[in-house]
């Protein structure tokens, strides 16, 4: 309904855009381009003008570095497992909470509690719970469930170390997935369910033919955001593995980037790693969006 407007849009638009645009250019767009430049140099942080152009050398070094390859493996395993489990359990919790019953608000807040805790704090907490000597998890596995004969030293083995990190992310992330699903569920008109009930559809048929298709956009949003978040994992890896212990085998891509940059002061190499990750994230997101659109059509 384009009624005649009394003001022209361009000038107010500019004024409203200005503060955001300045911040965005100064701390996002500019840095991104600058980082691209750095990645092609053997960058000297003290005398940037003496930096030597090295072409794709930093990228090649990264791709042929076994520590980087290991970091890719760790990050991918972490992402695939956590996204899948969080989506499945989050949907389950949302379906259970999307009905009227006493104590619903209590459950909602309780399930959301891990989401609002801070990464630093819960990373330390999981490190303590998975402690090799007298840790709670070992105690439960050995003495209560009797699944293991003796204590597991979780943080001495590069694969076992991933388990607490993955469990931490699942524990902290279910509530968020659930609340997004819940919002999606509540946007589905109840008349659809009533009509289906009149037609004699049972609840599993309703789930399959109404809930599932109409949750499409919610699922797309969740997959895209969770995968981006997973590939960018940093704090839990940094704090639980203390930057790649044992023997640099437990890095995520970003902890390795951080160590190369601020530990070894190799800014060019760090920038190359972050660009490799960004390009990868970008294409994964595009592919996800494309696939989902196809499925919806």
């Amino acid at each position, binding site marked *: 309904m384009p009624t005649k407007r009394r003001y022209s849009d361009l000038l107010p638009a500019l004024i409203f855009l200005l503060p955001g645009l300045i911040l965005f250019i100064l701390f996002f767009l500019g840095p991104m381009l600058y980082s691209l430049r750095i990645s092609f140099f053997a960058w000297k942080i003290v005398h940037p003008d003496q930096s030597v152009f090295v072409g794709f050398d930093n990228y090649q070094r990264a791709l042929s570095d076994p520590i980087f390859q290991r970091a890719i493996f760790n990050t991918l395993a972490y992402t695939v497992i956590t996204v899948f489990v969080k989506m499945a359990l989050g949907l389950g919790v949302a379906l259970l909470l999307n009905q009227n019953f006493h104590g619903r608000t209590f459950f909602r807040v309780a399930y959301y509690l891990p989401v609002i805790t801070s990464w630093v704090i819960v990373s330390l907490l999981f490190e303590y719970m998975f402690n090799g000597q007298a840790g709670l998890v070992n105690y439960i596995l050995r003495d209560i469930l009797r699944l293991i004969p003796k204590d597991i030293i979780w943080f001495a083995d590069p694969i076992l170390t991933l388990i607490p990190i993955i469990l931490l992310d699942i524990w902290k992330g279910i509530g968020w997935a659930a609340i997004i699903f819940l919002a999606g569920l509540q*946007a589905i008109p109840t008349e659809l369910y009533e009509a289906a009930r009149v037609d004699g559809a049972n609840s599993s048929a309703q789930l399959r033919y109404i809930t599932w298709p109409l949750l499409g956009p919610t699922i797309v949003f969740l997959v895209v955001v969770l995968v981006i978040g997973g590939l960018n994992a940093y704090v839990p890896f940094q704090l639980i593995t203390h930057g790649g212990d044992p023997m640099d085998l437990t890095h995520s891509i970003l902890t390795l980037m951080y160590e190369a940059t601020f530990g070894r002061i190799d800014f060019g190499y760090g920038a190359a790693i972050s660009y490799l990750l960004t390009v990868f994230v970008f294409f994964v997101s595009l592919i996800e969006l494309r696939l989902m659109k196809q499925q919806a059509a």
Partner: protein
Amino acid sequence: MKRSSQQRLGTLLRLVILILGLGFVLLPIWYMVITSFKPQTMIFELPPRLWPRTWTLKNYVVALGKDNFGLYFLNSSKVAIVSTFLTVLISSMLAFVFARLRFPGKEALFTMFLLGMMVPPVMLIIPQFLVAKWLNLFNHWGLILVYATMNISMQTFLLRGVFENVPRDLEEAALIDGGGPWTIFWKIILPLSWPGISVVIINTFLYSWEEFAWANVAIKNASQRTLPIGIALFQSEHLTEWGQVFAASLVALVPVLIIFIIFQRHFVQGISTTGLKG
């Protein structure tokens, strides 16, 4: 008759599953709480207890009196409050433009802002470090400006969806009364979008309160550290004093909890008013 007993069974089953899940969710938090009340000698006791034999407040007294904890708490509060305020203001101004105004190049500009959702904050640390060095921003303003920037993409995206749902008729009425875009933004759009803005407040406050990676490189001066840095350092300096680490951690969680409780009423409703629904 049959239907109602079936329903009751369903409700019972749902409650059982929910309570089992609750155990998984709350156990770590409970363990943190009771550890913070355990004396140091029982931190590694076998078997580990979910109900300590002796309770003590000593961890809180020691941890809170140590290492400038109070100062870090104030620093974090200041940074989180200002970042949240700036993000809400800037994102809603941007979202208003994208939801309501018309000018050439709007879609391209919006897409550019969406780029910010795809790029990992940590990857920008290197160049942001150089920008901060250039502008002399190794202080709280450096944190605030970067936090606001890292949040505006996602929050603008959410708020655009919210603002698009505000009925246009109200706007027409304001126009007839001679109001300009500022009046519409301030008097109509913002007051009607409260649930959506609550979501933005929770998201941004949480992010700024717990951010670690950028604060870790941008703050050099010990007196300007924020809580996450303070707690991580504390743990690496006092490796086995878990009681004190968790006492400090739990106090650090209180503000987030308060913000969440204040704004959670609007939370689910707020999310479904954003662009996420079908």
